[in-house]
Structure formats: C-alpha cells, structure tokens
C-alpha cells in the first residue's frame, strides 16, 4: 500500500535526522528506534496485496484456493525477528550510554572527545 510506504520513508528520514542532529545520547538512541519502526513499516507494506487477508488458513479461508486469498507471509516473518533483535540491541546501546554517563556525568555527546579526530 503506497500510503504506508510513504509513512515508513518519512519515519526513517525523521529518525536519521534525529540521529545526526541531536546532542543528547538518549535522543540519538530514540532516533534509532524511530528509524527502526520506519524500516519495519516499509518491509511489511511491500508484502501487502490489496483486498487480501492475513496468512492464517483457518476455516474462514478456502484452503484449496488459499494462494489467491492471503498476503505475502515472508516480510511478516522477517520483521517479526527484526523487532525482537531491535529491542535487544537498543538495550545494549542504552547500557553503553549508561557506561559513558558514568565517566563524565553528562548526557551531551559533545563532552566525549577522546575519540575525536
């Protein structure tokens, strides 16, 4: 569906902008989380077929003709695992941010200049 595709693109761009422009560490990780949601919406909307139902073949679906009645199951399966991994990587990033914060007690990314070149 084209509307959700555009929505996913806009969310991805907003998340990217937040990651690049914000100085606060937590805001940067929030931007990553928004961009993540945008990418998931893009992938799911690429698998949507107009007027079809969810890929669960219970008694409501004509099983012999099921190929013509359901949406694409592969993007759903990929996004399912991607969301769970997204949570784990976000938690890992937040732990790194907490470790950084322990050094200098500052949220701003400008205060950490050891690796700047």
């Amino acid at each position: 569906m084209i509307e959700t595709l555009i929505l996913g693109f806009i969310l991805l761009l907003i998340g990217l902008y937040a990651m690049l422009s914000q100085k606060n560490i937590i805001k940067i990780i929030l931007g990553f989380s928004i961009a993540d949601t945008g990418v998931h919406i893009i992938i799911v909307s690429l698998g949507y077929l107009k007027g079809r139902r969810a890929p669960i073949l219970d008694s409501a679906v004509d099983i012999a003709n099921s190929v013509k009645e359901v949406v694409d199951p592969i993007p759903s399966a990929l996004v399912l695992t991607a969301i769970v991994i997204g949570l784990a990587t976000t938690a890992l990033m937040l732990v790194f941010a907490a470790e950084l914060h322990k050094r200098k007690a500052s949220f701003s990314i400008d205060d950490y200049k050891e690796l700047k070149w």
Partner: protein
Amino acid sequence: MINKLLIIIGIIGMLLILLPILVNFQSPTNLSALAEEYVRGSVNDLKSPNVVTSVVVTYRGLDTLGEVTVLFLATLGVGFLLENKKNKSTQRTVSENIRTTSSFLVSLIMVLGIYIFTHGHLSPGGGFQGGVVIASGFLLLILSDLDFKISHAILRFVESISGLVYVLIGLIGLVLTIGFLNPAILPLGKYGDLFSAGAIPLIYSLIGLKVGSELTNIIATMGSDRSSESVVKEER
C-alpha cells in the same frame, strides 16, 4: 555550520536512495513463486494453519536459530557491562493498588503467555510474542513486590536448556529426515488440532521459554539496585 551542511547532504542522499523504490512501486497482484510454495507447503506438508509460523520455524529455521543467538549475545553484553552492586534494603513504597491488582494479574498474564506460544501454529502469535508477554509479567512482579528477586541461576538454566534442546531437535531432524529442524520427526496429526504440525509447537515453545528468560534477564539486570543507594545515602 559544516555540521548542518553534512546533515542536509546525508538526508538528501538517503532520500535519493529511497526515491526509486517509491517511483517504481506498483501494487503486486499475485504472490511471488516462493511465497506460493510456502503457503501450499504449510497446508500440505506441515499441516500448520499459520503460514508465518511455518516460515519462521521451519523454512527459515536456521535464521531463527541465528536470531536467538544474537539475542543471547545482547543479553550477555547487558549483563557483562552492568556490574551489579549488592542490593541494599529499598525504601521505596509500593501503592496498595499495584500490590492488590498484580497479585492476581500476574498468574493470568503468565497463562496468556503460555497460551500464545503453544497455539503459535493455529492463531496469530508464537514464541516471540509469548516470551515477551511472560517477561512483562515478571516486570509487573518486580515492580509490585520489593522483596521479589529473580534467581539468575534459574533464568540461565531455563535459557540454556531450551537452547540446547532446540539445537538437538534440529540435529535429530538432520539424522532422521535429512533436514535440519524438519518438524516431521513427530507425527503430523490432524489439520487444526493443538497437537499437530509435528514438532512446530514444541520448537516454538522452546523459543518462547528462551526469549522470555532472556528478556526477563535484561529487565531484571537493568532494573536492579534502582534508586536504593541514593536513599541509603540520604538517611545517613
């Protein structure tokens, strides 16, 4: 100034990458050949009504194994980086509402989680969703009961045993039916029954236990020694 310019260049570059997808987009009218094969195979070969479950557990089972491994590594990183100080007595009080409600809600949430991952092949849901629901049940328990401490040894035991059995089921499939993680090692049963679709409910339950214990571990590690020490300091 140069920063802002670089940000704008980055955004425009991303826009240029995405634009061809948008311009060339046309709504597909038919499933791709691979997806058709998966939908047919889910009904005829695996007898599992939920096609997404059969893709996650069987057709892309190796991907799911790798994904669970990534989750395990992230949990390991969280536990490794946050060294846990010993919990001192917490002075935080819990409101009466949360304590009363959670005492009977937690058991319902746990039952819902187990229902979701055992019925993963029949209805929407499965191991990942069920595991997350169980983890949120434990979260409610942590929030409501100050004396409640999750034993990390039990969590690690459940997590490693379910991961081990998951790999063993895959290897048994490799020996018996020449297919890693092939669910046909158990009888397929009748279409639409709870005990059907071979080993799919078993594998998804193991994934549910593994995901649930890992996420509970992340939450318990990040939430531990919360605000306890500052309270102790104020008292002195």
